[in-house]
């Protein structure tokens, strides 16, 4: 089970957070800071999987951004690790070279894309992930 999907930058600012299991809003900040602290303390020689409380964090760095996914022990770390990369590729395709600013200014779109991909890993086919969003926006601009 994927518990949450976070995108944070090196300064520890949250760029996107999505919780798939309810977490009280007051605890969001605390959890995110903790998670970021742990990810930042990892070096390249260390593995990309961290144990945090009773779940695992899988993190992957893209330039100044960290994508962190929290899962329980039913998931395979490596599969999630590659899933992160898959999601980045999808975002890349949509925004044509995705940057941190893209994510910030298009928070809603990134969320919509993620909704297509995750609740477990539900869709990994790029075209299919983007189809609903494209329909929404292409039409919106056409009129």
């Amino acid at each position, binding site marked *: 089970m994927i518990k949450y999907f976070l995108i944070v930058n090196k300064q520890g600012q*949250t760029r996107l957070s999505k919780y798939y299991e309810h977490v009280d809003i007051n605890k*969001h900040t605390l959890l995110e800071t903790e998670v970021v602290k742990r990810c930042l303390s990892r070096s390249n020689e260390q593995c990309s999987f961290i144990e*945090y409380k009773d779940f695992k964090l899988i993190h992957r760095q893209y330039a100044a951004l960290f994508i962190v996914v929290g899962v329980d022990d039913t998931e395979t770390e*490596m599969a999630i*690790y590659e899933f992160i990369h898959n999601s980045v590729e999808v975002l890349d395709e949509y925004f044509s070279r995705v940057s941190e600013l893209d994510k910030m200014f298009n928070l809603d779109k990134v969320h919509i894309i993620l*909704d297509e991909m995750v*609740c477990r890993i539900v869709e990994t*086919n790029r075209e299919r992930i983007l189809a609903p969003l494209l329909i929404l926006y292409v039409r919106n601009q056409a009129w």
Partner: protein
Amino acid sequence: MSDIVEKTLTALPGLFLQNQPGGGPAAAKASFSSRLGSLVRGITALTSKHEEEKLIQQELSSLKATVSAPTTTLKMMKECMVRLIYCEMLGYDASFGYIHAIKLAQQGNLLEKRVGYLAVSLFLHESHELLLLLVNTVVKDLQSTNLVEVCMALTVVSQIFPREMIPAVLPLIEDKLQHSKEIIRRKAVLALYKFHLIAPNQVQHIHIKFRKALCDRDVGVMAASLHIYLRMIKENSSGYKDLTGSFVTILKQVVGGKLPVDFNYHSVPAPWLQIQLLRILGLLGKDDQRTSELMYDVLDESLRRAELNHNVTYAILFECVHTVYSIYPKSELLEKAAKCIGKFVLSPKINLKYLGLKALTYVIQQDPTLALQHQMTIIECLDHPDPIIKRETLELLYRITNAQNVTVIVQKMLEYLHQSKEEYVIVNLVGKIAELAEKYAPDNAWFIQTMNAVFSVGGDVMHPDIPNNFLRLLAEGFDDETEDQQLRLYAVQSYLTLLDMENVFYPQRFLQVMSWVLGEYSYLLDKETPAEVIAKLYKLLMNDSVSSETKTWLIAAVTKLTPQAHSSDTVERLIHEFTISLDTCMRQHAFELKHLHENVELMTSLLPVDRSCEDLAVDASLSFLDGFVAEGLSQGAAPYKPHHQRQEEKLSQEKVLNFEPYGLSFSSSGFTGRQSPAGISLGSDISGNSAETGLKETNSLKLEGIKKLWGKEGYLPKKESKTGDESGALPIPQESIMENVDQTITKKDQSQVLTQSKEEKEKQLLASSLFVGLGSESTVNLLGKADTVSHKFRRKSKIKEAKSGEASSTHNMTCSSFSSLSNVAYEDDYYLNTLHDRGDKELKTFSLNSELLDSESLTELPLVEKFSNCSLSTPSLFADNSMEIFHPPQSIAASVAKESSLASSFLEETTEYIHSNAMEVCNNETISVSSYKIWKDDCLLMVWSVTNKSGLELKSANLEIFPAENFKVTEQPGCCLPIMEAESTKSFQYSVQIEKPFTEGILSGFIRYHMMDTHSAQLEFSVNLSLLDFIRPLKISSEDFGKLWLSFANDVKQNVKMSESQAALPSALKTLQQKLRLHIIEIIGNEGLLACQLLPSIPCLLHCRVYADVLALWFRSSCSTLPDYLLYQCQKVIEGS
């Protein structure tokens, strides 16, 4: 392309709306999106948290104004939502916007709607009350002709949806499974997956449709259905074995590259789909050779194909290895898998190494040689700079620990523990160390020292079981007494040295362990006297850093040591100081110590040395105070009433509206806080009293039953025998009658006068004023209490017998000596015995009563036969008695006399349970086997009685029961008979316990015997069991019913038409009681409360109400399937008869 045209056309209405504002929105849009931009930029530029907070608060207040302004367009609202999402993401509360998010989802055009849904899914959680407002929108969108809207609605349903509203959308979503567009079908499957997660029983009926989804022509839909299957197979793999072939075929196609190319990820075909399928196969093939054989080929191919050097192929390989080791083993595959693991472990890539270790950890128990192969790598990993790798290695070592390597492994674990600061890691590791130490400790010294380390590092975060288990181990010891003493002595010595160290702080839990051990086992010391130990404990007691909980442990230890110390100044000093302590608990303990100290003889008898393991008989009912209470009452003292009762009475007297929430929709005033019939009657009177103030109560006031059922002293046996279904309440009045017959008779006279009067209101007013502070009522109350307590006591003693594996609670340990103190001081054998007797007797009375009631109503069965079934020692006498009792008595006095005689006759009986008639299950010329069921309180007892019909002796007749899936069958002692004499009957008893709820089950077995040393013969038989065999009455009070009712989530309602013969509520309930063993708690007018439990302890409550000839049944239970089952049974019983 045509798709898009189709979608745009269907969306036209929404688009017109959007167009209307004309040129205006362009400007607005620019300003709003730039506002989000400026907000984001502003926040990014900020350096301190404080500034951020200021900025966001500013933003939030401006947003609040905008969203609630009537001029805000939906488009602006959409922009506001995105900003609100942003603020919430940063951890600021934006709850004022939630309702607007729902509105946006309802009213917006497509894009706005999508953002509205998005905001809802981000803001709200499953049980948020606002979520209900979304349901209508979802239903509307599901019915929309616009595919995009349907899609959105399905997306949101698969993310977040209120459980109780599932029926509203379920049919719509089921329809969508047949939709022509794959995306709709896929999302519908995902929505159903969500439902399966939160309410599995609601989607049970569409399992066939899931199969269709699995065979869908589109890959996406099929992949989505795998989520549901993975979950269902995890719960019950045996039900889906037939699908193994399908899963294997799918995986073969995926691995063989038969999928469309766009499902490839870095030229690996659908890797996540493969992983999902491998997981499913692993679950299906577990311990099942036949199923496993089906998948060997495809697994082999997977292992072969995944050679590409890419991360995702490693993920597949890992899953593959996992599956190969989960299913029934095949050596060829295992070899290949082991090679794969080797590749992982030896890889220079750290992530792969991690995976390798994880795989090793998983397979090591099946194949320890693999650990030997990779031992050098493991050792390397143990000193790896990455703590995560180290941790995983320790996990691996933990799995291969044995008596030889335990010291080294524990050493490594402790090292890691000293470096780690994370609470979760500490808790986890400490538990493992303690477990290993207990299992494999090589000697005493090592064990104690390891446990010392565990306690000092684990401190107050570790699982409480660890100190408990440790103390239990010390106290109960092993087989060898001298070894035990040495262990204890070593523990005592090591603690004393630890305490001698200056300026060292130990965690509270550790101090508690020390004080218990010192208190119990200091006597083993020869050098140090108890006085010296007391002095050390005293020093700790005076230490401010010690918590008050620990101090009570310490003072308990001192108390235990005092009798050994003879005279000690320290003790007196301690008493002196703590009898004036501000801490009540401490003061209490100090006073106890003081009183005991004054009476040394009592003290030594109370606190014997090394008796911590002996069972104590605790008189929890405080029955030794009965005499005191009786004396008090006879001198005119007001009887004790529980707090809530007093409050209620006060309320009703003041004629104030009752603001307390009603537990149920029916009138609850009659049964809140009642423990005994007397209480109930009082309550119903009160409700009559307060009836003038509230509409609800007026209903209950009009009840016709009330006058007939309840009399003044609480209960009219005369009426009760007419209605005849109050058996749960029966024993208690008998108790009261036994104890003060005279009193009751006078009371009864009064009550008759009362019953005869016609004006209900007046009567009830009078009654309620009369009832307050009635002597008899208090007696009944007291006895009622003793009843429930004695049950508890029995259960407890049962637990004690079975405690073996269970950790006894810390408190039991600490207080063992203390409770013995209060017990021995006050405990009176006589009272204890009476308590026991009373418990037994009441149990008996109940079962017999219900049996009697059974026999009374079941006219087709001759009474005598029923009674002979009871196998009473004096059946005839008993039958007589009971016959009289259940005829309407001629006069009250007579009935009282008879009841008391009945009660006394009960006393002489042994405990009996209801049981079925014997039924022959198999026979041949030599023997015949018949079986019957005894429905015992805690289990179902199956008795097979074997009759030897031949004139010959049978040797070593033996009866065996096949293990059954849903039951746990245990043999009762004394079952194997070496020799069976000619023409005799022997019975075999098996207690059957339910492991998994089921509806029908078969228990089969065989009997094998030797006839006169010649041939051995075997005879098979089977017996049907239904869930009903495991339903027992649950005897609770109405108050408890109310509480339980609120706490159960699963409920089922249904109206049942009653047959003519039982149109009245009491008779219908009686049927339920007899046939389904439900316990009738109370009947209030046209409503009835019943309760039962599924053994071992799953309660189910039933509320019934009668309208004309319809009985409305309403079940609630903590178990989701039980209400459905019971409903079905009730329907059968009520409609059938």
